[in-house]
């Protein structure tokens, strides 16, 4: 029955049609309410006192002076944390507020609620803290041989993946060491939220986040409350990209609201935000690739070291991805990959778009180019020759049972002809508005890269989403706790509902913990599949209930009933009823949706740990001014495996945005950390691409091969664009300069040697 289709579309976009975002225009004209715009009568303002040192012992903490300031309503420290003073996504290892030991610069020490933000600022200044500074552990390579900086030890996770015959040696071997700097998600809406004390002794929290229910269980545990008494509602999210998976001000806000019995609002400043969320793990990677003389990959050896910073966050899952996908989407019979993530006194690192696969793509793609050079082969040819296809095994021993159009993404991307012209205007050359170059100073390079990663959560995690569908008077209401962070669930849920129920009007209830079960995280490119799947399943159940009810009430053959354009019609009998009339009595279905089960990795990193994979390729064309070390990316071409395209407009947005983030990592985005201190915690100095840095994205091909088992055959598409784009840009810079450039982002002093001056 689920194959039945309505013949005439009701108005409003359905599956496969471009659906403009309902929040698009309000976000552009300023009328969209972000979490920082929340307001409550008689509310207080909150603030956080943070450690200026990355490693220290608190020897004195005195809040007396701060409490005496007129208008200060509460000053709280770790002693006031009602429940467990620890939280974390994978392990509860991070204090709500530091007790004695400071493990990173910016670690929260005390929190304040006051009548006005200026009074908050004064109160924070009036708190007296004395620190005994300690030498920070900042070199991840020394972490395992240094004294523990945390009771859980300095090793967060080590994976030794061994696949196939370990004795294999290739006739051709290439080796390299690569580094990736610390990238920030650089969302525009800083951490912000509002907590309102509940009459039941609980609390209502309105916040921008990626996973409401995971927040709830952590917040409840820190507050010492039953989960039911912590109610979390999604507030307007100003971007996420992984940076909102961990708690930030959640517990602080609730503690202040419960202590003062008043609503409390808090907004991080931009500088504070850089200390308030996790970043992308910096990576150091060693690779040795073995191939035969025809260019067939035989074996890959690699060591991947990620700096996890002070707390575990999602580091364990990130290193699993970095290890499993370390060698890229290629068929490789033998591998020895060591993946290690360690604890240091650097800023904590965790989830960011691409999640471990971005760093290793920089490494494996540089290796493929080296191999092509060593074999005197075309870089496209060697990639296609070794491309994974359905039925092949991954390094984890898992057989790909779904679609894997790897050769297709490479081929279409490589064949797409560049449309960009030679530039003559200095503004369009490297240096941009600074007009530093003329055409004769420029050398151009072009290169391709391919990458992939898993969709959804892996390694046996019980990954599910929940949805409620209610149909009454011809109007469908969908309730799902899926966090809309810009990925497009709000349009997709309506498209799916229209597709299945033939209704025009679809209401999306607020995403909240108190109305529906968990939707899981808006990350891992998983919500289209997971919450899309939950909405699909809930709608299907409602449709069946409706048709069964009508068949009985009106004595018609259920198999011939169809939902057409707001009406239920029989194909072979004289029966038609409007949906509005047919659903005057409400119908509803509440469902949980799970993807196929996954399994843990064994001691050799082997196992069916993942569900599905998505692939992308980028070709970058760059202009470089080798004498000044300046770069302008003039074109980005991409092909992507999407399973099936559900919302073309949104897909283009994801492909463009992800490529921009990848370009940023290639040429400018880096959180600069010296001795554990962030030196560029601002958008003045943490640079992201402007319109003069980001070229138009040319989509060579969107490969639609429906993925078995996926709702509508659609794969998640959010992460791949940020995986292969970085590697393509840096490879193109190598082509233009003939330099090795083993590190991203590429800085001007990596291109120009200044010693000679």
């Amino acid at each position: 029955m689920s194959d039945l289709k309505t013949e005439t579309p009701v108005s409003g976009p359905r599956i496969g049609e471009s659906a403009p975002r309902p929040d698009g225009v309000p976000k552009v004209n300023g009328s969209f309410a972000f979490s920082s715009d929340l307001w409550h009568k008689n509310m207080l303002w909150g603030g956080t006192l943070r450690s200026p040192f990355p490693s220290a012992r608190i020897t004195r903490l005195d809040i007396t002076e701060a409490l005496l300031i007129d208008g200060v309503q509460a000053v709280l420290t770790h002693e006031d944390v009602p429940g467990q003073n620890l939280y974390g996504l994978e392990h509860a290892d991070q204090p709500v507020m530091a007790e004695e030991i400071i493990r990173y610069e910016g670690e929260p020490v005390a929190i304040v609620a006051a009548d006005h933000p200026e009074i908050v600022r004064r109160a924070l200044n009036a708190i007296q803290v004395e620190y005994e500074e300690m030498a920070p552990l900042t070199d991840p390579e020394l972490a395992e041989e240094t004294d523990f900086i945390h009771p859980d030890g300095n090793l967060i996770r080590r994976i030794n993946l061994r696949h196939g015959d370990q004795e294999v040696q290739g006739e051709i071997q290439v080796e390299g060491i690569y580094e990736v700097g610390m990238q920030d998600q650089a969302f525009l809406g800083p951490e912000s939220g509002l907590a309102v004390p509940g009459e039941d002794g609980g609390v209502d929290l309105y916040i921008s986040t990626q996973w409401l229910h995971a927040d709830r269980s952590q917040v409840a545990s820190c507050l010492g409350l039953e989960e039911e008494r912590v109610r979390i509602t999604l507030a307007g999210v100003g971007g996420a990209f992984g940076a909102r998976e961990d708690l930030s001000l959640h517990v602080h806000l609730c503690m202040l609201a419960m202590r003062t019995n008043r609503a409390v609002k808090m907004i991080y400043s931009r500088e504070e935000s850089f200390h308030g969320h996790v970043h992308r793990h910096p990576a150091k990677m060693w690779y040795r690739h073995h191939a035969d003389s025809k260019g067939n990959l035989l074996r890959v050896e690699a060591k991947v070291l990620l700096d996890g910073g002070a707390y575990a966050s999602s580091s364990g899952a990130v290193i699993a991805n970095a290890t499993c996908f370390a060698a890229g989407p290629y068929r490789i019979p033998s591998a020895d990959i060591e993946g290690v993530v360690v604890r240091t006194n650097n800023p904590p690192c965790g989830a960011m778009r691409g999640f471990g696969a971005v760093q290793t793509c920089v490494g494996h793609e540089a290796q493929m180019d080296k191999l092509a050079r060593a074999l005197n082969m075309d870089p496209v040819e060697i990639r296609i020759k070794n491309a994974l296809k359905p039925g092949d095994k991954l390094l984890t021993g898992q057989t790909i049972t779904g679609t894997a159009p790897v050769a297709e993404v490479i081929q279409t991307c490589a064949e797409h002809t560049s449309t960009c012209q030679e530039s003559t205007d200095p503004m369009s050359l490297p240096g941009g508005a600074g007009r530093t170059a003329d055409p004769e100073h420029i050398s151009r390079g072009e290169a391709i890269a391919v990458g992939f990663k898993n969709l959804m959560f892996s390694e046996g995690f019980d990954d599910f989403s929940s949805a409620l569908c209610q149909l009454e008077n011809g109007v469908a209401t969908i309730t799902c706790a899926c966090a809309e962070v810009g990925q497009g669930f709000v349009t997709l849920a309506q498209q799916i509902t229209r597709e299945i129920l033939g209704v025009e009007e679809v209401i999306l209830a607020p995403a909240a913990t108190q109305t529906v079960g968990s939707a899981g995280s808006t990350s891992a490119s998983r919500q289209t599949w997971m919450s899309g799947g939950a909405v699909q399943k809930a709608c299907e159940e409602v449709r069946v209930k409706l048709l069964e009810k009508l068949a009985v009430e009106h004595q018609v053959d259920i198999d011939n009933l169809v939902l057409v354009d707001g009406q239920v019609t029989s194909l072979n009998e004289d029966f038609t009823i409007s949906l509005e009339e047919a659903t005057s009595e409400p119908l509803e279905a509440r469902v949980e949706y799970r993807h196929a089960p996954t399994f843990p990795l064994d001691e050799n990193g082997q196992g069916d740990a993942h569900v599905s994979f998505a692939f992308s390729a980028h070709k970058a064309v760059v202009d470089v001014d080798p004498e000044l070390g300046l770069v302008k990316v003039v074109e980005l071409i991409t092909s992507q495996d999407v399973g099936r395209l559900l919302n073309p407009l949104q897909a283009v947005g994801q492909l463009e945005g992800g490529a921009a983030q990848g370009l940023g990592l290639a040429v400018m985005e880096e959180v600069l950390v010296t001795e554990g201190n962030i030196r560029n915690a601002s958008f003045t100095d943490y640079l992201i691409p402007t319109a003069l840095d980001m070229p138009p994205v040319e989509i060579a091909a969107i490969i639609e091969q429906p993925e078995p088992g996926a709702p509508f055959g659609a794969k998640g598409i959010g992460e791949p664009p940020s995986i292969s784009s970085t590697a393509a840009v840096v490879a193109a810079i190598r082509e233009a300069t003939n330099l090795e450039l083993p590190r991203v982002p590429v800085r001007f002093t990596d291109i120009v040697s200044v010693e000679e001056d």
Partner: protein
Amino acid sequence: MPVTVARSLDDALSALEEHPNALILAGGTDVMVEVNKGTRPVEQVISIGRVPELQDWEHEGDWLHLGAAVTYTELMGEELSSLVPALAQAARTVGSPQIRNAGTIGGNLGTSSPAGDTLPALFALNAILTIRSKTTVKEVPIDEFITGVKSNSLNPGELIEKIRVPVLEGPQEFCKIGPRNAMVISVASFTLLTDHQEKQVKSCLGTVGPVPIRPTEAEDFISGEVNWEQNTVRPEVLDNFAALCSSAARPIDDHRGSAAYRRHAIRVLSRRAASRVFSEEIS
């Protein structure tokens, strides 16, 4: 904090006489960053953004008079960019369109940052500032006004009223390096002006010292070597000019760039700017 919104120059000067240490606010593009960060305590603000006298500019004979509240966007306009091209090009490199609509040339002078984008062009032009208080008025050459990193000779009770620069005959160039193609703080910049009447090259180095640096030795050298009839120069002169400019730089290492790179950049930029302005003689 009390804010006085001045509607005329006299308004502003009277308010300033009453509150000599007040913060003078025009576009606010520098000041508000510090205020928001909490690093600039503010007791009293005098807003001069709506003072008509400060927003005007006038071309009079060989001189251009720019009101202190002329914005970067106005400097980039057709008329001003034909009169002082280097200043217009420098203005184009400031921030984003929104910042350029709000930020002013007087504000760039008041902030006196080593990375101030319009300052090198103003140094090369030997700009003269009119400094006014309720009771006094004086003219101060720019190199006496800017005294160090973020410091200047403006006294309490005074404001910058206008800036006077010569309109020169001959091409001008401004180039600036940053780690991004737009909207970026300068790592190094170079300004080059030609004065065909006086047969002189004037130039200035930006962001490679506490204040903008005039490489006078380099200027004198190239001015004497240029064939002013043909507007040409021998290639080795360009090389020497670049080397002299580079050796005049006094850069520091910071998180935006190393001293060695900055010195190198000045050599490259000065040679490129000069070869845009003069054709190379083929020997």
